[in-house]
């Protein structure tokens, strides 16, 4: 008789947990902007994209972001062509992907700025690197948004910079991501 109560109790707890996770739900990225900046003495290179796709599951504390490399816009069209053709080899590796886990105290129902730790695999140019850095999730008037700044070392992802232009391209690139999150 006691074990029956135990089982029922466990079932009820599990029910509430799984339905809770379904209820907390997933958020997708809208109005995103990913911007990167390479600064050297000779030349500054920057580009941005508004075509980042992403999903964050706050109940499971997981996320997945994906960017089509050809969506990065440069001031100079030839630079954009070389970025895809010579550096990113976008025909072989069409997307840059970041998947992993989010850790931190977070209450999506309460306004505030929450600092979370983002940890996962950043795959650029076909090469994955384990990365962890901070991000800020802001809740304001029912709207959720995410913002983060981090650096990418070009050599980590086997992106080759030829000696002809080594003074024009930084070894470490500054990346910034800003996006609104919408519940799905």
């Amino acid at each position, binding site marked *: 008789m006691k*074990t*029956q109560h135990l*089982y*029922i109790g*466990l*079932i009820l707890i*599990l*029910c509430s*947990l*799984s339905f809770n*996770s*379904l209820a907390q739900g*997933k958020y997708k990225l809208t109005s995103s902007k990913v911007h990167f900046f390479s600064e050297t003495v000779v030349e500054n290179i920057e580009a941005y994209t508004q075509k980042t*796709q*992403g*999903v964050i*599951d706050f109940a*499971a504390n*997981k*996320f*997945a972001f*994906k960017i*089509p490399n*050809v969506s990065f*816009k*440069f*001031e*100079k*069209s*030839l630079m954009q*062509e*070389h970025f*895809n*053709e*010579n550096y990113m*080899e*976008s*025909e*072989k590796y*069409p997307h840059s*992907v970041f*998947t992993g886990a989010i850790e931190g105290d977070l209450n999506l129902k309460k306004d505030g700025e929450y600092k979370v730790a983002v940890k996962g695999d950043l795959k650029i140019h076909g090469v994955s690197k384990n990365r962890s850095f901070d991000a800020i999730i802001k809740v304001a008037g029912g709207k959720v948004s995410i913002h983060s700044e981090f650096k990418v070392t070009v050599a980590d992802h086997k992106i*080759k910079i*030829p000696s*002809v*232009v080594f003074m*024009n391209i930084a070894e470490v690139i500054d990346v910034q991501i800003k996006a609104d999150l919408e519940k799905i």
Partner: protein
Amino acid sequence: MKKILLTSLMMLIALSAYAQDDLLGMLEDKNEVQYTKATFKGTRLINGHSVETRKKNTMDLIISHRFGELSGGAYELFGLDQSNVRIGLDYGVSDRFNVGLGRNSFEKTFDGYLKFKLLQQSKGGKNMPVSMTLFTSMAIKTLKNPNYEISFKEKVSYSYQMLIARKFSSSFSFQIMPTFIHFNTITPEQDRNDIYGLGAGGRIKLTQRLSLNAEYYYQMKTLTDQTFNSFAIGFDIETGGHVFQLQFTNSQAMNEKGFFAETTNDFFNGDIHFGFNISRSFQLNTKKR
């Protein structure tokens, strides 16, 4: 009763695990179109144009030289002592539509062209096996004849080309060029006003920035029976904003009517000219695109 409870427990555990979906799988986009980029490094294959167009507000300065015959030997510095020059500007009115102007020292010919990329090779949501660019050019020969006046109309010739290319892999691209040239006036020694044929060429990319190019234009109808088919072989070296093309060819002219219809040297008999094209891209209007 125990069994039922146990199975329901297992199912619930499984359900909550399944609820944590493959998030990345949610981001798959079956309709994403991937457009092929950079079928060739530059807008010229060697003598003739490639399917590539410059993007909007980009201007290319292109300087081409074709030197004298290599058979001139050391005394003539293997042809370097004589050279024909073409100086030209190419401009991207839009990503697909380019215009250009040039001036050739050979017969003091001015040329101007319009180039429109009709089709872009793509895969994924939209499948297009080739890129196709339409090309037309007008050439005006301003070299004076000491014996008589030439009217404007007599100086003009028109060229029409359909450039069709496919990037088979990141290291191999191939292009065919049906070509038609019309000469407004011909001399008694020349056979016909309308010349046409088929060109073919391609590139093999050797490194990220270096490729080996070859180009051959076969005349189905010739201007005279002493003209030869134009053949060219060379290297493309791309360094950021410049493309350097170094080549060997039997043609001395650098516009379509010149190299296609008026080549008087036989490549396979050793009448070869060394030459180069250098193009430099400038981005005008550098506001964020």
